[in-house]
């Protein structure tokens, strides 16, 4: 599967007009034909596509991700350098989206069609309709420029010399706005799914039974309805982790966070084939990993999944 990803990405990038040397010459503000020729030679861009694809695949087989043309550094270094920032951003944003989305979903779903439900649902619809770049800019103008409560960009204070807990706090402070911008939009999605899932569960027989048993409403909502409604949400979480990787491109640019999304954008504009394939490969692995993890969580939430396995 991953091999198909690699080959497709390679071919797709070849079909884009212009190569890494065109992009590099442009950043130099011009250069003559001899410079272009010698650059193409040194990057192996003068060879045929098949030869280059074979070369790339054989080095990949040795777990070598190759050399970035646009950055002049090994691709693996670049990815390892940027990945933690994106994971932090995505992890926090997912936690925010999932945590807040689920909680609000429970509030809304506890009494379907009540005023609370209508207000929360309307709010979620508005949030869901907002583009993340717009929200990012507005949050930045309000909280960084006008109120000056939070830094407007970056992952940490520049050359601050902080370490340990002070540094972690500094990074957390810098992450509030980007995580907010990225998380709130996905939160709306989780909220809506949670709410409608709960509305479905309310109609089921075992809820009526729980009521008949005389259980308190809050106990029914939390233990019976919400728990069962969580299942589709976990599925969503897996799907959204891939979407969020895409969303981080915009947020990382606006908030100047040196992460994966920005690296991907730079790889495309620089026609940096090895780097882009490296990024896509890592992202694919990441999504596979997240979904594997969620499958395990699924088994925890729904006893039937584990039971089926036991029976087999």
């Amino acid at each position, binding site marked *: 599967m991953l091999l198909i990803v690699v080959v497709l990405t390679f071919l797709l990038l070849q079909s*884009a*007009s*212009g*190569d890494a040397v*065109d992009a590099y*010459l*442009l*950043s*130099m*503000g*011009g*250069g*003559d*034909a*001899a*410079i272009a020729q010698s650059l193409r030679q040194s990057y192996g861009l003068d060879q045929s596509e098949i030869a280059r694809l074979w070369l790339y695949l054989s080095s990949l087989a040795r777990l070598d991700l190759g050399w970035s043309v646009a*950055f*002049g550094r090994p691709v693996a270094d670049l990815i390892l350098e*940027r990945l933690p920032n994106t994971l932090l951003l995505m992890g*926090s944003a997912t*936690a*925010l989206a999932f*945590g807040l989305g*689920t909680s609000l979903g429970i509030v809304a779903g506890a009494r379907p069609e009540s005023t609370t439900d209508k207000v929360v649902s309307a709010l979620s619809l508005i949030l869901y309709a907002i583009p993340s770049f717009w929200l990012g800019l507005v949050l*930045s103008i309000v909280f*960084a*420029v006008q109120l*000056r*409560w*939070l*830094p*407007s*960009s*970056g*992952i940490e204070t*520049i*050359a601050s010399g902080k370490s340990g807990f002070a540094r972690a*706090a500094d990074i*957390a*402070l810098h*992450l*509030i706005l980007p995580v*907010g911008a990225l998380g709130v939009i996905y939160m709306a999605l989780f909220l809506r799914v949670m709410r409608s899932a709960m509305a479905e569960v309310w109609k089921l027989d075992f809820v009526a039974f729980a009521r008949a048993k005389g259980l308190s409403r809050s106990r029914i909502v939390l233990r019976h309805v919400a*728990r069962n409604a969580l299942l589709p949400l976990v599925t969503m979480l897996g799907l959204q982790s891939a979407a969020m990787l895409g969303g981080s491109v915009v947020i990382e*640019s*606006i908030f*100047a966070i*040196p*992460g994966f999304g*920005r690296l991907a954008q730079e790889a495309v*504009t*620089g026609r940096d084939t090895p780097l882009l394939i490296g990024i896509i490969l890592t992202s694919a692995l990441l999504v596979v990993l997240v979904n594997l993890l969620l499958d*395990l*969580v699924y*088994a*925890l*939430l729904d006893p039937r999944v*584990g*039971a089926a396995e*036991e029976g087999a």
Partner: protein
Amino acid sequence: MRMNLLSRRRLLQSGSALLAMVAMPALPRAKEKASGGRLIVAADSEPKNLNPAIVASNGVFFIASKVIEPLAEAAFNGEGGLARRLATSWEGSEDGLSVTFKLREGVKWHDGRAFTSADVAYSAMNVWKPLQNLGRIVFANLEAVDTPDANTAVFRFSRPTPLQLIRNALPVVSSVIPKHVFDGTDIASNPANTKLIGTGPFRFAEYKPGEFYRLTRNEDYWGKGEPKLDEIIFRVLPDRAGAASALEAEEIHLAAFSAVPLSDLDRISKVPGIEVISKGYEALTYQLVVEINHRRKELADLKVRQAIAHAINKKFVIDTIFLGHATASTGPVPKSASEFYDPDVTTYPFDTAKANALLDEAGYAKGSNGVRFSLKLRPAPYFNETKQFGYYLRQALAAIGIDATLVNADAAAHQKAVYTDHDFDLAVGPPVFRGDPAISTTILVQSGIPAGVPFSNQGGYENKALDALVAKASETIDAEARTEIYRQFQKIVTADLPLINVAEWGFITVARNTVLNVADNPRWAVSNWADTALRS
């Protein structure tokens, strides 16, 4: 087996713990007062190769010019428009075959070694001439550099080379790098291309990719009492709205090269403590140019080119697209280059009726649908203004019955389509005038340039008289005679229209008013900043 390592409750708990971390209340922010003399500047790109001796581009100079110095820098009030840096004097021989530079004494490299004429000779012969994008043109006929003593470098040329050209090119092409660091290594892959070692007022301290570059004060700098700052930080801010926000939030002091978009200038100029400065780019003039593919039958006809020139309302372009931050062009040399500029050329005032008449005369009558012929128009994506001018030009052409199809592409694709594949009829480009027409201007109209050279004549235009003029200028030693040739050059280009010059612009710097001595030379953003200071 049933997985029970994680309970549902724990899962929810850990989720809310993460959430709590994210929603942590704002801590009081450390005040970034100018007490330590740290200047923070917005940077929008991170050049792979930061060595200005190899890559003479504004993106590289912006950072590297503080660390690595040229022989001379541009100046508003200097002899010949130059300020002495590593060279203290320069003199050309009568026959134009040599130029003698006297070098500054007592200059040290950042690693403690002494700077000598051997460094200049090495830089010129091993880097500028063979490797540098612009040096390859300026030093094409450089044969050798003699070093009779440690402070004298004599450049010897195989053919007469005008001192005027060398002088005008010095700020751009003459960044000196240390011989002892590069000699005997593969120059292109030397680590000192990113971790710079120079003689400049600032040392290269640190680079965190995607975040910042940090330069620190060079205690041993030759300039008395310089530099004034302790530190310069170039903070990477890729988003254009980000630079404006960071300035307003007082997180950065300065954004150069119009990092704050033109449309934001009006608003930000009203913010207390922020100044909008349009000086300091006089020697970095960008030109808005309509590039023409002369292989197209219709465009090979002078009358058609004249008609297109008449169809463009330059005043509208400047007022609406550049919001007043540009000047209308009359020809291929900008007004800011007063040494060469000739106002007495053929001009094409905005006149749609005349344009239509010219096209009728040329035999391209309007069809039943009002269209004479169709064209492919490729605006360069490098600036907002080049893209917007593409939209405007399409409308302007429609008014004279030319139907233009806009083709927008990203930078690499545009470059390949126009300068390698010639897949265009009209293109909008932003070439740069770099102090002398021979550096990057004549190449726009000269014939015989191989495909694949960006910012050159790839439109198939050929004019023997113009080529002869350019060749003659390259061997004319006398500055006055050479200037006269370039006046002729402007007359021919404007009369024959190998391309159409529309407007010319410098950039805008937006800075906090605590930054002192901003824009005090015509290449300020890409100069040494030794006298830049912060008011505490």
